[in-house]
């Protein structure tokens, strides 16, 4: 496949198996840098599985097997997650992921935000505070939580929790953000805020969004792809 300079991710002949069950068959695709690509399709077709291939989350599933090539451009360097030519923690810091259900850890808001930085070995308090504030502001959450950063993150509303989780992923300044149905557990108003937030992130990173909502995909996506019968095609 011809590599275009604006491509951020290239998928070439990828097949995926859970034990003997084949979920994806010979997938070819490319994802442009600085764009939102929406992936849709019927339930159980492997959309979340496909998303998990880009940051190797599938690696944690016993009995899972993947063939083919995935190449991701991180900075000036192309890496191949399936070949594990990059340490997994480093890959996952650069290819961040948010899930369907917001999953704040049972700690304070500030603790949640600082957590990925501490995992990465950052110890400078003022640097952490600066990064946390910046990421929360990006998520339109700073004004809402600035006076209760030490309070539990579990007390936030559903929409706030999801924005916190996105902000937490952004604190490491990822180049790719994988979003697995990020608004499916939220009401319309909260979903709208998340959509605006995702669109605002296009300038900073490449987004792959799994969604079931066609109207949402039309609103936010630059490209929509359909995953059906183990294959991926553009619509």
């Amino acid at each position, binding site marked *: 496949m011809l590599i275009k300079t604006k491509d951020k991710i290239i998928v070439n002949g990828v097949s995926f198996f859970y034990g003997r069950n084949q979920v994806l068959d010979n997938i070819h695709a490319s994802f442009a840098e600085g764009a939102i690509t929406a992936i849709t399709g019927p339930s159980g077709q492997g959309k979340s599985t496909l998303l998990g291939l880009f*940051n190797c*989350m599938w690696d*944690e599933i*016993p009995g899972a097997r993947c063939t083919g090539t995935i190449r991701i451009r991180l900075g000036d360097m192309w890496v191949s997650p399936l070949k594990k030519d990059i340490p*997994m*923690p*480093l890959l*996952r*810091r650069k290819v*961040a*992921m*948010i*899930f369907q*259900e917001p*999953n704040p*850890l*049972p*700690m*304070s808001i500030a*603790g949640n935000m600082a*957590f*990925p930085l*501490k*995992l*990465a070995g950052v110890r400078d308090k003022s640097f952490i505070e600066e990064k946390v504030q910046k990421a929360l502001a990006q998520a339109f959450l700073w004004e809402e939580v600035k006076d209760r950063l030490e309070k539990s993150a579990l007390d936030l509303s559903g929409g706030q929790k999801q924005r916190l989780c996105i902000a*937490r*992923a952004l604190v*490491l300044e990822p180049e790719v953000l994988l979003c697995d149905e990020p608004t499916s557990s939220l009401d319309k108003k909260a979903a709208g805020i998340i959509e605006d937030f995702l669109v605002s992130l296009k300038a900073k990173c490449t987004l792959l969004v799994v969604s079931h909502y066609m109207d949402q995909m039309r609103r936010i996506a630059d490209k929509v792809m359909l995953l059906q019968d183990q294959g991926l095609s553009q619509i």
Partner: protein
Amino acid sequence: MQGFAEKAVVVFSWIMTILLCLFVFLFIGYLLIQGLPSLGRELIFGQADPLQALLGRARVFDGIFPAIVGTLCLVELSATLAVPVGVCSGIYLAEYAGPGMKKLSGMFFDILAGIPSIVIGLFGFSLAVFLHNHFDDRIGPCLLISSLSLAILVLPYIVRSTQISLEELSPGIRRTGLALGANKLQNITYVLIPNALSGISSGIILAVGRCAEDTAVMLLTGVVATAGVPSSLLSQYEALPFYIYYISNQYTNPEELAGGYGASLILLGVCAFLFMLAYGMKKHLSYWTLYRA
């Protein structure tokens, strides 16, 4: 008909719960009635001066102070031996072991949990005899051998509760740390263990309770009626459960038997203290691990 069946189940469950609560209430009430009159300085310190006894300057011959100290030493030593081994084994089984290893070790720990405590006691006694004959004739049934035997006895509870608590964590929690760039060890340390701490602590609390009360193991591995406060790990010791057993078998007058009830109340108090200590540690540990990650 279905509504009637459901009501019957609810009423039956309610009655059983009430009966159980009533039984616990009657049991503790009976112990209090029998044991409270004998509770006092004399039961614990006998004729010795409490301050001198507490400072280790006076030996208590006719009180249960040495038995209280012996029980606390036994529990602390057993927990120190069993908790790190049990928790680490549980983590290994939940997070690193393959299916075959999990099945094999699961079966092994289930068998270990099913071994009667008297058999564990016999193993401890045999170990003491072996060490006495082959290594050092100063070694015999003692506090260390008792603690080791009790640690083996409670290991399955700690291993299984740790393993199950970790395995029951939702996939959402499991992948949170990984998706944020944690390596496997960081994910276990900062995300999985803090979230499973409640279940792990329950296993430890259960183990602590078992260490404090298992008379059969103590009987064969070093407990005696009059040993005083244990002076070293290799000395024999007194323990509250054995004192209660001994008094209930050998009492010569009602006052002595009342002393046994008093000792039972103190043993309950010691257990309650240990549970509260474990609960307090769990709470502070949770705070430390969850909020200070």
